[in-house]
């Protein structure tokens, strides 16, 4: 008698709780997951290949499409890698604006995570509150770059443009109201018995396993490992800011929730500090070979015209070599490995996408548990398929 006891169920690629086009093949024994096999690649768009054929500055808009919930983090990783290869550092004001905007990006990314994660588990109203605040951050994106989502605001050597008038006021108002908003989310979830029932003790992973599986970001910190690239290998002057790295204890879905909510508060702290640090000054390096001259000079200065023409027709060369630049994106360690050959285009760009690595731990977290828990665990990992499939 060879009667099969298990049933194979395809979850995705079109399933609302898989946050995009993730396909899981679940082998079920009743309602218990015996085996889970993720299949990815449905959103593969060849971004790394595309970057090889674009000049350094031209590649930035492509990177927005990786983790499309945190476009500025993707920009930042590439821009910092190119700057490292060039051996330059951007001025103080540009660094502060980068910190301010990437922290707002983290808040924005975590808000989408919280809203959709709660929605997956059945708490509908949290989603509406989170998107209300996210909208304000999108307005700030629009103010600085003219784009709500794919903003491409960071450039090699600095920024696209300085902050528009009234921007600081806009951020100030948002930051003043934000702590009370986080209280609202927490009032809905943190002590809610239904929420705790669905999250406490679900999908737990031990710290040693998490490290071996390469987890990073909030998913690793929930296991009690305080690894944050902003502290471990600071960039953009993070070593001068005062902030804590929240950690969890057992690494279950609930801990990942508490860690991210605590990070919302830390990002608020960082953004507030950055806002108060903003002082007038240049936003780009003073190198006409890297940064286009002001438009008004083009009609009066031959040099400016030549530089402008060269930059837009040919770009700039980066010395041959290789660098790895990691940043702390909302999802974890986002690393760019850049190989240059002395030309005006990257020879090879690899994105170490945190979601890609974190998703690999999913089978470990859900095998032996119920199907309903799969939804909770996927939500808690905060994956974005754009970044996984690249």
């Amino acid at each position, binding site marked *: 008698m060879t009667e099969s006891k298990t049933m194979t169920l395809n979850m995705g690629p079109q399933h609302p709780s898989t946050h995009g086009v993730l396909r899981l093949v679940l082998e079920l024994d009743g309602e218990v997951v015996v085996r889970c096999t993720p299949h990815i690649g449905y959103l593969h768009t060849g971004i790394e290949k595309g970057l090889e054929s674009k000049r350094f500055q031209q590649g930035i808009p492509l990177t927005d499409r990786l983790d499309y919930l945190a476009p500025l983090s993707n920009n930042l990783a590439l821009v910092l890698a190119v700057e490292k290869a060039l051996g330059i550092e951007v001025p103080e004001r540009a660094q502060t604006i980068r910190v301010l905007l990437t922290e707002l990006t983290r808040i924005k990314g975590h808000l989408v995570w919280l809203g959709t994660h709660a929605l997956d588990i059945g708490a509908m109203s949290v989603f509406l509150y989170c998107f209300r605040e996210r909208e304000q951050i999108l307005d700030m994106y629009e103010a600085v770059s003219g784009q709500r989502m794919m903003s491409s605001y960071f450039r090699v050597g600095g920024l696209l443009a300085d902050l528009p008038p009234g921007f600081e006021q806009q951020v100030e108002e948002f930051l003043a109201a934000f702590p009370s908003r986080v209280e609202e989310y927490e009032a809905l979830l943190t002590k809610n018995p239904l929420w705790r029932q669905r999250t406490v003790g679900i999908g737990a992973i031990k710290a040693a396993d998490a490290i071996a599986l390469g987890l990073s970001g909030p998913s690793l910190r929930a296991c009690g490992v305080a690894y944050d690239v902003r502290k471990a290998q600071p960039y953009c002057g993070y070593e001068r800011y005062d902030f804590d790295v929240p950690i969890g204890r057992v690494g279950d879905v609930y801990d990942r929730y508490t860690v991210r909510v605590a990070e919302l508060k830390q990002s608020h702290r960082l953004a507030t500090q950055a806002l108060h640090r903003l002082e007038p000054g240049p936003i780009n390096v003073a190198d006409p070979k890297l940064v286009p001259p002001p438009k008004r000079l083009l009609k009066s200065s031959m040099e400016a015209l030549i530089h402008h023409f060269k930059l837009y027709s040919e770009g700039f060369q980066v010395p041959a070599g290789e660098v*790895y630049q990691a940043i702390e994106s909302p999802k974890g360690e986002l690393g760019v*490995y850049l190989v240059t050959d002395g030309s005006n285009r990257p020879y090879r760009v690899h994105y170490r996408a945190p979601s890609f690595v974190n998703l690999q731990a999913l089978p470990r977290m859900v095998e032996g548990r119920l199907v309903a828990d799969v939804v909770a665990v996927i939500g808690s990992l905060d994956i974005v398929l754009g970044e996984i499939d690249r």
Partner: protein
Amino acid sequence: MSEREGQEAGREAPVESLTAQHLRGRFPEAILEVKHWRNETTIVLRAAALVAACRFLRDDPELQFDFLSSVTGVDRQQLPENSPRLEVVYHLYSLHTKRRVRLKVRVDDGEAVPSLTEVWPTANWHEREVFDMFGVPFTGHPDLRRILMPEDWEGHPLRKDYPVEATPKWWEEEPA
């Protein structure tokens, strides 16, 4: 810029090359090349020594490279130095000493690289991606399949001789 480069190399090289020194002491034959650039250390290893060297780097009490950040590939076809053609690149990080190191293994087309899945389970998907995108086979990998491209895809997209823009040919039309 060259002055700055010199300063950086002078300041950081002794600290970083600690890793290379330790590794050389233990596996004198394994290291083919050590490079420093922009405060980063690159160690090129013989493929045969990779797994033992990584185990050592992970377990050595002074180094403790316990975190494998990423594994990726480079097709060196269009670089001035391009033999062997393919390169597998490993980025290691130590949560204790907060240091990074880059390891490399170079192989020709079709040659296999030992898999690191026994040392770090996270290598699993990374190696599948390198296999998919560059066509480097990994020996000892538990589940070596394509990961981003469809199973029946032909070619390896991130190789330099793979066109950036091309329409895949799904069928042949019969001549009229």
